């Protein structure tokens, strides 16, 4: 089943919604009053970016861009763990 004609109309609309969401997350990242707010915003934005990369690779009919989606989701988890371990280590004192 060739779905290229539908996807070429559908994916630009959906990516506009995702870009609007990423802009709102960017507001929280730049204006966040404390550090955990910024980390939460970067976390949400990274997972959004994974979906965005998947949609872009579906739009351009290529299968190799999807690997970046896997990497960026792992990176977001690592970022959370590193930030919280850094703060907890400061609290424990050793």
């Amino acid at each position, binding site marked *: 089943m060739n779905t290229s004609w539908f996807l070429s109309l559908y994916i630009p609309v959906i990516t506009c919604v995702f870009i609007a969401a990423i802009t709102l997350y960017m507001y929280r990242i730049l204006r966040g009053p404390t550090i955990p707010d910024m980390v939460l915003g970067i976390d949400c934005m990274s997972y959004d970016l*994974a979906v965005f990369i998947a949609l872009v690779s579906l739009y351009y009919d290529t*299968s190799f861009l999807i690997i970046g989606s896997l990497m960026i989701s792992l990176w977001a988890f690592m970022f*959370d763990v590193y930030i919280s371990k850094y703060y907890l280590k400061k609290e424990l004192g050793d």
Partner: protein
Amino acid sequence: MIRMLGEIIQQIVFGIGVCLVTIGAVFDLLAALGLVRFPCFYVRMHAATIGVIGGAVVPLIGVSLISLVSDQLGPYRFMFAGISFFTALLIMITAPVGTHILANAAHKLDLSPKEPIIVDKMGEDKR
């Protein structure tokens, strides 16, 4: 006959995938609005959960279903579907762990103010 049934099943799978991606986009926009509008960090975590599970896991499963029936991707479309589904599963496992560990660090060190608060059992235990 069999060929026609296959076409119908492919169109149903494609429709389910498109519905999942649309639902994910709507959830994502609502979560972004919540992350901007909610008052403090511990309330914003609820919106972040909506944005991760509803806005990233559901559309990735939808992309996986769409790519499974799209013939124009060539023989690598099974790789596409597999990596997309695996990414969805990985996000569903790792995102709650990250949010919980971040909330634990923020609560233990008072990194962010807990202003609209009713009860704080964890703080009572610490004292």
